[in-house]
C-alpha cells in the first residue's frame, strides 16, 4: 500500500526518451523498409511462377482429341532461345554494374548501364515476340490446344514482368537524368535491380525446365 502512494501522478509510463529527436525511432532491424518490401514481394512472386510453371508442366503434352495439333515444345528453336536467354542473363550483369556505379557516385556511368540493361531486356522481348509470331504462323495460337494456352500464359507472364522491368528502368533513367534521383538514392537502383535479377532467375528456371528438358 505504501509503495503505491509514492508514485508521482504526473509520471507517465512512457515519458520522454532518448528517441525523441526522431519522429520515429530507428528501424528495428536497421534494414531499409523499401528493400524488405521488394524481397517480400519477390518471395510472393516465387509462388506465382511456381504455380504457372507446374501448370505448364502438367499440361504441356495435352493437345486434345485433334491429334495433328502440336505442342509448343515441338516448335522450340533452341539455338534462337539460347541466344535470347544469354541476352537476358547478360542484362543482369549490366544491371549490377549500374548498381555499383551509382554506389560510387558515377551518375553518368550508371545511366549508361541502366539504358544498356533496358535495351538488352527489349532485345529479349523482341525475341519473344518473334518466337510467338513464328509459332502462330506454324498454326499454334493461344487457343489452339491446352498445351499452347499453358505455354503462352507462362512465357507471357514472364514477358509482362520483363516489360514492367524495362518501364521501371527507363523511368529510373529519366528520373536520374532530371536530377530527381542522385547518388544518395543508390538504393532505389538496387531495389529495381533486385526485381530485374528476379526476372532473370525465373527465366533461368523456365529455360531449363520448359525449353531444355525434353
Amino acid at each position, binding site marked *: 500500500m505504501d509503495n503505491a502512494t509514492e508514485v508521482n501522478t504526473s509520471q507517465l509510463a*512512457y515519458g520522454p526518451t532518448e528517441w525523441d529527436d526522431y519522429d520515429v525511432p530507428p528501424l*528495428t532491424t536497421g534494414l531499409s523498409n523499401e528493400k524488405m518490401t521488394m524481397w517480400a514481394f519477390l518471395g510472393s512472386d516465387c509462388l506465382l511462377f511456381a504455380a504457372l510453371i507446374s501448370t505448364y508442366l502438367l499440361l504441356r503434352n495435352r493437345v486434345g482429341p485433334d491429334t495433328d495439333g502440336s505442342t509448343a515444345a515441338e516448335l522450340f528453336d533452341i539455338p534462337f532461345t539460347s541466344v535470347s536467354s544469354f541476352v537476358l542473363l547478360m542484362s543482369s550483369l549490366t544491371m549490377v554494374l549500374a548498381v555499383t556505379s551509382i554506389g560510387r557516385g558515377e551518375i553518368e556511368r550508371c545511366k549508361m548501364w541502366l539504358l544498356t540493361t533496358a535495351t538488352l531486356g527489349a532485345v529479349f522481348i523482341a525475341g519473344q515476340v518473334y518466337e510467338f509470331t513464328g509459332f502462330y504462323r506454324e498454326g499454334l495460337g493461344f487457343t489452339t490446344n491446352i498445351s499452347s494456352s499453358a505455354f503462352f500464359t507462362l512465357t507471357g507472364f514472364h514477358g509482362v514482368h520483363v516489360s514492367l522491368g524495362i518501364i521501371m528502368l527507363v523511368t529510373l533513367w529519366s528520373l536520374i537524368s532530371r536530377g530527381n534521383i542522385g547518388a544518395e538514392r543508390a538504393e532505389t537502383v538496387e531495389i529495381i535491380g533486385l526485381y530485374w535479377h528476379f526476372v532473370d532467375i525465373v527465366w533461368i528456371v523456365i529455360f531449363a525446365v520448359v525449353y531444355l528438358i525434353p
Partner: protein
Amino acid sequence: MAITEEPPLILELESGETKPSTGAFARPTYAKGWRAWVFTVDHKKIGIMYGAVAMFWFLWGGIEALLIRTQLLTPNGTVLTAEQYNQIFTMHGTTMVFLVIMPLAAAFANYIVPLQIGARDVAFPRMNALGLWIFVFGGIFLNLSWFLGGGPDGGWFAYAPNTSVTFSPGAGMDFYAMGLQIAGIASLVGAINLIVTIINMRAPGMTLLRMPVFTWMILVVQFLLLFALPVITVALVLLSLDRTFDANFFNVGMGADPLLWQHLFWIFGHPEVYILILPSFGIVSETLPVFSRKPLFGYSVIVISGAAIGFMGWGVWAHHMFVSGLGPVSVAAFSATTMFIAVPTGVKILNWIATMWGGKITFTVPMMFSISLVSMFTIGGLSGVMHSVAPADTQQTDTYFIVAHFHYVLFGGALMGLFAGMYYWWPKAFGYKLNETLGKWHFWIVLVGFNLTFGPMHILGLQGMARRHSRYGPEDGFDFWNLMVSIGAFVILIGMIIFAINIVKTWLGYKAGTIEQSPADPWDGRTLEWSIPSPTPEHNFDYVPVVTDLDDFWHKKYQKDENGKLRKVADGNAIAQLGDQHPHLPSPSYWPIVLASGLPLIALGLIYTLWLTGIGLLVLVAAIYGWSLEPHTDPDVGHGHGDDHDDHDEPDGDHSENLIDSPKDESTEEAPVG
C-alpha cells in the same frame, strides 16, 4: 517530414530551391469532413473504414443468408428459382469470406498493430490507403454483377470446368474471377505493408518474443496472405483467360484435368481458412488474460503453435478434395497431415482454458464473446477432425454436416472473436464503451441463434441433406430441422439488430454527453495501446515507448513488492500518455484512391469492351507517376494534425484517487511473467 514513407524522390534541387511536385498536385491537407477520410493515410482512419465497409458487406451477406434460409424454410420453397439460389449461395460465401471476415481482420490489424508495437503509423501509409481503396472497389465491382446480368453461380470455390462459359454462360463468373483478383491485390499490398511494419517498426526493446499475441497472429496471417494469394491469382487468371480469351486450361473436351483448378484453389483455400481464423485467435489471446486478470498461459507456446499452424496449413489442402478421385495414396497422405494440424490448434485451446483457470474472471461482453469463441470453435474443430478421417468424410462431403462444420469455425470462431475485438477496442477507437447491457443481449441472442441455426445442420447432414440444393421434398423428412435452422437465422438477425442499435445509441449518447468519455485504460489492459488516450490521438504516441518486458504496460502498473508479491503500483489511466505532443505526420494523398479506381475499369473493360481497359490503364499509369512524383509532405503544414483531437478529456487529475488501490486479492492472482 513524413517519417515512415520512402524518402522523397528528391524535390530539392542542388541549388537548394524546392521544386513543388513535378507536374503533380500538392498533397491534400483536409483535417475534417469526408475528404479527410477519402484522402487519409492514417492507419486508424483506414482501419475504421475497413471495418465500416466490412460491416456493410456483412449486412449484405446476411441478407443473402436469410434469403437462403427463407427458401429452405419449407419443402419445395418458391422464394427463389434454382438459378437465383445458386447465385445467392455463391455470393453469400464469397461475400462473407472476402468482403467481411478478411477486411474485418484487416481493420483490426491496421488499427491495433501499430499501437501494439509502439509505432506512429505503418511502414508505408499511402500503400495502406491503396489497399483499402482497392478492396472497396473490388467489393463494389464483385457486386456490380447483380445489376449486370446476375451474380456468380459456381460456388465460392468456383470449380472449373463447372464455371466455364459452357456451364455458366452469364457474366457472373467473370465478375467473380476479376473481382477476387482485385481484392487479392488489396490483400497483397496490405500484407507486405504489415509484414514490413511488424518486422521493422517495433518500439525500442520490443523483441519478437515481447510482441503481443495479436500482433504475432497478424504477422503469421500476413505471411499466409503473401504466399497464398499468388496461387489463387494464377487460378483466377487461368479461369479468366478461359472465359474471356478462349484458352483451354479447363476445357475437358480438349483433355483438361478438372483436378487442376481444385488443387490451385485449395492450395490457396486452406491457408485462407487460417487467414480467417488466426486474427480472432490473436484477439482472444489479448482479451482472455485481461478479463481473467492473469498472464496468458504459455505465451511462447501460443506463438509457436500459431506459426506452426501457418506452416502446416500448407500441407493439408487436398482434404477438401477427398471424393474428387485423388487416388488412395493422396487421400491417405493428406488425411494424416490433417490429423496433425489439429495438434497446434488444440494446444491453443488448452492454453486459453489454462489462462482462465483460477483467474478472476469478469464477464464483460468482450470476455463473453471470447469464451464463446473457445467453446464454439472447439465444436467446429472436433467436426473438422472427423473430416480428416477420409471414410467418414466421404459420407459427409457435400452434406449440411460440412456446412455446420465451417460455420462453427468461421461464425462461432472467427466472427465471435471479431465481435470480442470490437467490444474490447471500441473505447480505444471511438472514445467510449459500447453499452454492456445491450451487448449482453446481443451476445446471448446471437449465441442462441447461432447454435439453433448451425447445430441442427449436423443432424440434417447426417440425415443426408445435400448442400447447395435449392429445395427438398416433403417426403425427405428434413422439414422440422430446416424450420429450426431458419428460425435460428432470424434470431441471429435480431441479435445483429441489437448490435446496430447499440452502436447508434452509444454514439448518440456520447455526442450528447450522457455517455462518459472512456479513460485511456478502461479494462486494465496489458499492451501498449492502453498507454495512450482514448480515442487514440492522431500521432498515437507522444513519446516512443521503450519496452523491457512482454506485456510491458502491465508491468508498469504491477510490480513485485519486497515479499515477492505483485502489487498494483500505478493506475493505468494516471500513467497513460496525454496525447499533447504534435510530432510530424505524413500528409494525406490523392493518389491511392485514384490508383485503385483504375483497377475496376480495367476489369470491366476485359469483360465488356477493351477501350475501358485502356482508360483504366491510363488512370493507373497516371496515378503511379503522380504517386511517385508527389511531394513528400505539404511544406506549409506544420504540426496541425493533432488539432481535431483537442476535445478529449485529459485523464490526469481525475484518477489520482484510484491510484492507491492495491487490491491484494487481485494481485495475488497474477503470476509473474517471464
